[in-house]
């Protein structure tokens, strides 16, 4: 069912045009090369895929459904809206596709311990889950501010046996969690595998994460052909670092008729200075091992970001998305906190599906786009995760519970 060819590969150094690369401290260069080598070797090994795809099917619950959201379509008016239901995966978000892949790689390399950064906690939960299944020690780095707003996920990780380490440095959010995980990895790389959560970071992570997530787009493409008899006109995904976006969009890259749309977090508005829209508002810079678009000041100091969703609250973006944007293959859109909150309620009321706040950004933009299109057209939206983890934030926003913070 799945195509295992690696298309649109980066160059040998991990560059997508001028973006990407491996801007890492010397100590990490060899460990990164070891992972790259192990990845290519595994990817060429039928047994690796047999085990990976079996886990994706019987443990994760793939293929996830493609759902024709007729009630939402009627409420919005315009193109037919189809939702790729990554929210129905085990652990509740697409993140598990990647942690299964990297977890298998870690085991193959004989590593006894895994570490990860997490923003919303979904990648942390997915990593802790795989670590539990494989019997590996697991440490998760999470910004203290994110821990407060995603407490249910913190507790889930602990229940799964992971040690959640609060990060207080910098802005105490996702970028600082990455810094802290990198600092730990430098000291522990001999026995530790860093399960990186998004399609960013130093080569080979952008490639690895993309490849492990392309199941999303490959399934959606086949399901859309099957159900609607044609390809979608537009494919829409939210973008923080870009893991669910690369997963959904990559398999459509060579379909010239399909518009690819990345939805960034506009926070309080793109002109407010308080957002996480690195493609729309950033410039080329170097952070966390790769050259990409960054939100930074004139002197290259990386700026704090704002989004109501912890998973999008990141000042960079995957280098391949930066490249696709520069090449004109990727369209940008952005949803504010308010847009996302409204879209969450709309989807919940119309379809009985509570999306994650991250995915709600894509729902909001996808609905806007669908509205401007004809009824015989199709908008495919990646519903990357479920909203259970966000209930505190939502209830506070609606004024149903006291805001303790």
């Amino acid at each position, binding site marked *: 069912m799945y195509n295992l060819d690696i298309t649109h590969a980066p160059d040998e*150094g991990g560059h997508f045009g001028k973006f990407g*690369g*491996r*801007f*890492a*401290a*010397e*100590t*990490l*260069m*060899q*460990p990164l090369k070891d992972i790259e080598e192990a990845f290519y070797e595994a990817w060429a090994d039928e047994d690796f895929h047999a085990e990976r795809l079996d886990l994706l099917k019987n443990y994760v619950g793939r293929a996830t459904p493609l759902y024709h959201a007729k009630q939402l379509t009627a409420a919005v008016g315009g193109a037919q809206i189809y939702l790729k239901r990554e929210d129905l995966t085990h652990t509740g978000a697409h993140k598990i596709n990647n942690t299964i892949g990297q977890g298998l790689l870690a085991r193959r390399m004989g590593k006894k311990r895994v570490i990860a950064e997490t923003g919303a906690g979904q990648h942390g939960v997915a990593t802790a889950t795989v670590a539990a299944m494989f019997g590996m020690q697991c440490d998760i780095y999470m910004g203290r501010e994110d821990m407060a707003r995603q407490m249910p996920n913190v507790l889930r990780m602990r229940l799964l046996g992971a040690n959640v380490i609060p990060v207080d*440095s*910098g802005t105490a959010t996702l*970028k*600082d969690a990455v*810094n802290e995980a*990198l*600092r730990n990895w*430098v*000291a*522990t*790389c*001999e026995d530790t595998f860093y399960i990186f959560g998004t399609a960013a970071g130093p080569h080979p992570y952008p490639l690895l994460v993309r490849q492990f997530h392309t199941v999303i787009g490959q399934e959606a493409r086949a399901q859309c052909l099957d159900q609607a008899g044609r390809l979608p006109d537009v494919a829409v995904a939210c973008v923080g670092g870009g893991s669910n976006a690369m997963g959904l969009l990559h398999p459509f890259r060579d379909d010239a008729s399909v518009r690819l749309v990345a939805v960034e977090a506009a926070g309080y508005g793109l002109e407010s200075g308080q957002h996480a829209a690195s493609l729309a508002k950033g410039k*080329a*810079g*170097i*952070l*966390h*091992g790769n*050259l990409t678009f*960054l939100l*930074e000041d*004139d*002197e*290259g*100091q*990386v*700026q704090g970001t704002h989004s109501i969703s912890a998973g999008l609250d990141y000042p960079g973006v995957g280098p391949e998305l930066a490249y696709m944007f520069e090449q004109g293959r990727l369209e940008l859109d952005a949803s504010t906190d308010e847009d996302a909150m409204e879209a969450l309620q709309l989807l919940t009321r119309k379809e009985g599906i509570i999306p994650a706040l991250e995915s709600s950004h894509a729902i909001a933009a996808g609905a806007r786009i669908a509205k401007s299109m004809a009824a015989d057209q199709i908008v495919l939206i990646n519903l990357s995760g479920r909203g259970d983890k966000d209930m505190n934030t939502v209830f506070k926003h609606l004024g149903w519970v006291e805001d303790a913070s």
Partner: protein
Amino acid sequence: MSNPIARPSRLAAVFERCKQEGRSALVGYLTAGDPDVPTSEALLLALAEQSDILEIGMPFSDPMADGPVIQAASERALEAGTHIADVFALTKTVRDAHPDLGIVLMGYANVPYAMGFDIFSERAKAAGADGVLIVDIPAEEGNICDASLKQHGLDRIMLLSPTSTDERIKLACACASGFIYYVSLNGITGADMGDMQGIQDKVKHIKCISNDLPVCVGFGVKTPGQATQVAAFSDGVVVGSHFVGHIPQADNKADICGALSVSAASMRKAVGAIA
């Protein structure tokens, strides 16, 4: 003024001088602008008195390779409003006071990248820097900076670590000049030093490959005793977190300066002692 490229580099002269004196070089590190620009100026001048080479850190919002002590230094400097122009001005002040001191600007790629490596190199050279050490630009990514540094006569200091294979050592040595900075441990700045014998063996091995390029050892040197041990088998001993650690210990400039001077003098003595 004569062409700076045609002269032997100042860093080479520093190591030659130390060799003649039969000792290892003391390479002292402080973050520019920590805890504020005026205090930083006094501290850099005080450390320069005792150092053969001064590493001036360029503060960055995300110092991924640094431990808590130097992370805090970066945060204090940025909090106090330190700009890259201040880093150059501080460099110039130290240079004017110490014509023979080696000066290396150390930091992360995004700060010079944001300015553009050409302009950055020109300003660094004009301020009196001899070399540049960018933690997150390995040899493989050198084409974003190598030509600019070379054009302006700046040495590119390369890092090597315990994980560096022979292939990587050769790669780094091929694009390094000035000296090689050997990171003594798999870890961040200010961590505990590893097994001294292992460090010595690796340094010896690197020197076989490095083709006469001096090798300095850093990350984790905290006591004069360690400095003396490292000095016995290296061309230079880098002390960073230990010096930076004095800054949050006192609230007035004179006290920090005093403590730093005492500590630097004892490190300077240590690198000249026979292990």
